[in-house]
């Protein structure tokens, strides 16, 4: 049974999505429990896969019994297994949280909503575990189509944001598809490992086609992950989408795209090509520096809580793109570590923003006024997430940033180190401002009137289904922080196959 675990990661949410769409027509109340059960099963399957990978090394699962490259295969190594666990756990926590607000925000359509939610999760899991470059495109589109719909089910402004996302997302995915086509015209294969082997044996690294394929794939993925100059679609999408939609998409979609970038650079093209033959590290790291600073400064300018957090995502994307192109083993370890820790800390603060919105109905940061007294447990969860985003030990954020900074120092990219520290400082300013408002209830002098004064008196602790995921996420952040050595050893096992120490300058 355990050798079939990889397919179960995906099969449970995917089949349940179809069941929910059917059953939900008659029994709306069944949608939520079915979603939970399927995601729970998916978490078990992904954990079992991770255990197998750690024990026996990478798994190659032949779909349809055809040996690759003739058929499609799952290729699961340490990186995919870790990200798959992250995706399924985040999805489960978000699903628990969604109980109250899906019915409130999308009445009459909760079965469609849960169906799309599960399809999004299966799309993301499919991206993570597949070993076929074209299959990745199909999964990318499953995830993309569902996210357009999940955003567009929100209010007026969300629809426009979703349309922009649809246009940008299609350009990104089409660039990726074209890049795969360019690889195919030169190598004649679609299997990732096979492409790599043909690239090496046929000596195609000097071909302009491969160069353009690399550019197309990288730019396509950058659009999808909202890397700085291409980020314009992201803030409005995540800020105005229904709460559950932004809770699932903010932590996962950009992070999975970063996974795709890491996978493409390391497994398909190889660090030798990306970092040595092309030698673009400095340009990309500088782009990442600009992204980090632009994201952080953009966050400073926001009064809307969720919109402020979306700008932090843009800064975090800069961390990880820069971390990969440091071309240093420690830096890349940090990048992969940061994919995981950032998924959980983004989830943590977005869950908090969702609770605040559900309880007060206000979007701006002054809604936090006096929260420490009214909902102490919620604030504890928020504090852990905020400390992790700032980078205070023993939270996960500290350790992943530590590896990123180490990588920056090792490779001599001081501008990156400085940008990372400035951004952490800005995060500290941002979150201590929030904590100040929440603790002292400081209102601006001009009397910021937000029409919710009456509601505030009644605000009490969040309900159990909202609190449980928030506190679990906070606990996970601390656990990852405490067991960072084990996590790093899995990542370094994965990286050891690439000879990164020798392939850098």
């Amino acid at each position, binding site marked *: 049974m355990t050798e079939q675990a990889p397919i179960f990661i995906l099969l449970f949410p995917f089949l349940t999505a179809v069941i929910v769409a059917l059953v939900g*027509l008659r029994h709306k109340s069944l949608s939520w429990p079915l979603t939970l059960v399927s995601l729970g099963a998916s978490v078990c399957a992904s954990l079992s896969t991770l255990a197998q990978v750690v024990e026996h090394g990478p798994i190659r*699962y032949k779909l*349809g019994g055809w040996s690759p490259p003739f058929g499609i295969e799952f290729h699961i190594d340490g990186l995919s297994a870790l990200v798959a666990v992250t995706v399924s756990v985040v999805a489960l926590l978000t699903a628990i949280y969604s109980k109250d607000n899906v019915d409130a925000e999308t009445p009459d359509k909760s079965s*469609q*909503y849960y169906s799309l939610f599960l399809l999004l999760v299966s799309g993301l899991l499919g991206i993570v575990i597949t070993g076929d470059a074209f299959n990745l495109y199909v999964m990318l589109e499953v995830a993309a189509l569902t996210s357009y719909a999940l955003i567009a089910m929100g209010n007026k402004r969300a629809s426009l944001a979703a349309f922009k996302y649809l246009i940008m997302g299609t350009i990104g995915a089409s660039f990726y598809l074209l890049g795969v086509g360019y690889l195919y015209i030169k190598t004649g294969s679609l299997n990732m490992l096979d492409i790599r082997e043909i690239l090496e044996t046929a000596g195609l690294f000097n071909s302009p*086609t491969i160069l353009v394929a690399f550019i197309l794939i990288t730019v396509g993925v950058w659009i999808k992950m909202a890397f700085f100059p291409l980020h314009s679609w992201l803030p409005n999408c995540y800020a105005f989408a229904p709460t559950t939609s932004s809770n699932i998409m903010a932590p996962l979609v950009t992070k999975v795209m970063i996974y795709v970038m890491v996978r493409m650079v390391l497994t398909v093209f190889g660090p030798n090509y990306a970092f040595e033959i092309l030698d673009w590290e400095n340009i990309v790291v500088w782009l990442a520096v600009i992204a980090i600073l632009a994201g952080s400064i953009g966050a400073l300018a926001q009064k809307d809580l969720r919109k402020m957090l979306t700008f932090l995502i843009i800064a975090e994307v800069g961390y990880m793109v820069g971390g990969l192109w440091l071309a240093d083993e420690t830096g890349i370890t940090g990048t992969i570590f940061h994919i995981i820790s950032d998924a959980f800390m983004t989830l943590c603060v977005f869950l908090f923003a969702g609770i605040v919105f559900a309880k007060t109905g206000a979007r701006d940061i002054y809604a936090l006024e006096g929260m420490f007294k009214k909902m102490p447990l919620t604030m504890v969860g928020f504090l852990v997430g905020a400390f992790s985003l700032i980078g205070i030990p023993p939270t996960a954020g500290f350790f992943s940033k530590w590896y990123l900074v180490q990588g920056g120092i090792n490779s001599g990219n001081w501008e990156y180190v400085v940008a990372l520290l400035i951004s952490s400082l800005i995060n500290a300013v941002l979150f201590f401002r929030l904590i100040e408002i929440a603790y002292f209830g400081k209102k601006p002098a001009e009397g910021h009137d937000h029409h919710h004064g009456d509601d505030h008196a009644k605000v009490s602790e969040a309900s159990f289904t909202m609190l449980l995921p928030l506190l679990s996420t906070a606990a996970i952040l601390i656990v990852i922080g405490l067991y960072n050595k084990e996590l790093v050893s899995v990542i370094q096992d994965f990286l050891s196959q690439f000879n990164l120490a020798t392939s850098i300058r």
Partner: protein
Amino acid sequence: MKILGIITVIITGFLLLQAERDFPDWGDAASPASDNRLSQHYITETINETRVSNMVTAVLADYRGYDTMFETVVIFTAGIAIIGILRVYGPSTKLEHPEPTLDTEKPDLIIETTCRLLIPIIQLFALYVIAHGHYSPGGGFQGGVIFGAAFILLALARDLQTAQKWVPENRVLNLAAIGIFIYAGHGVLSLIFGENFLDYSILTKVLPGDAIDARYHSMLGVEIGVAFTVTAIMFSIYSNLASNGKMEEGI
């Protein structure tokens, strides 16, 4: 925006043209994509491994069956997404900006007679395309779209209500889900029998013939599943878009 567009187009176009010079000539049988064990294997071995003469069908439904399953899911997703975005339940709520009203007279004799004659033929042809995908161009997607077009034609010629009598909204969703269950069911069944997901060869246990025959028959099975989903979702997309999600009048 215009300037931004022109700059994007010039940069991308320049980049693509650079690579184009490096491509093998168009139609060159010795290009890496064609002269490769992957494409050669599909051409020469398909008949032996699956007994299907249409290689496209074999590669689609068997070698890359997993891709195709999720392709069906993409269609299903689009259907659910459009219902999620547009559908308005309950008594019709007036939009802020009313649609231009159309002439809602009874359709004239010519249109009605033509449809009455055409629709059965279209449906029959759709079934032929689905069933004959192993030997000629065709298959689940193509046949499904043609079948869906028959219902759309009915809705266009009469009105949405008439077409809804044949395929009401719930039945559409049921059909779409059944299609996916048929496809995924082949995979789950092979899991139950102890092989990998979608490995049709193990289905000899329930299908007549040997392992290759099982592949042959399963491919027909999954094509039928695909056809169910595509038919249902094509009509669902049309009826939601045409009636603005109210499922009342249509165009």
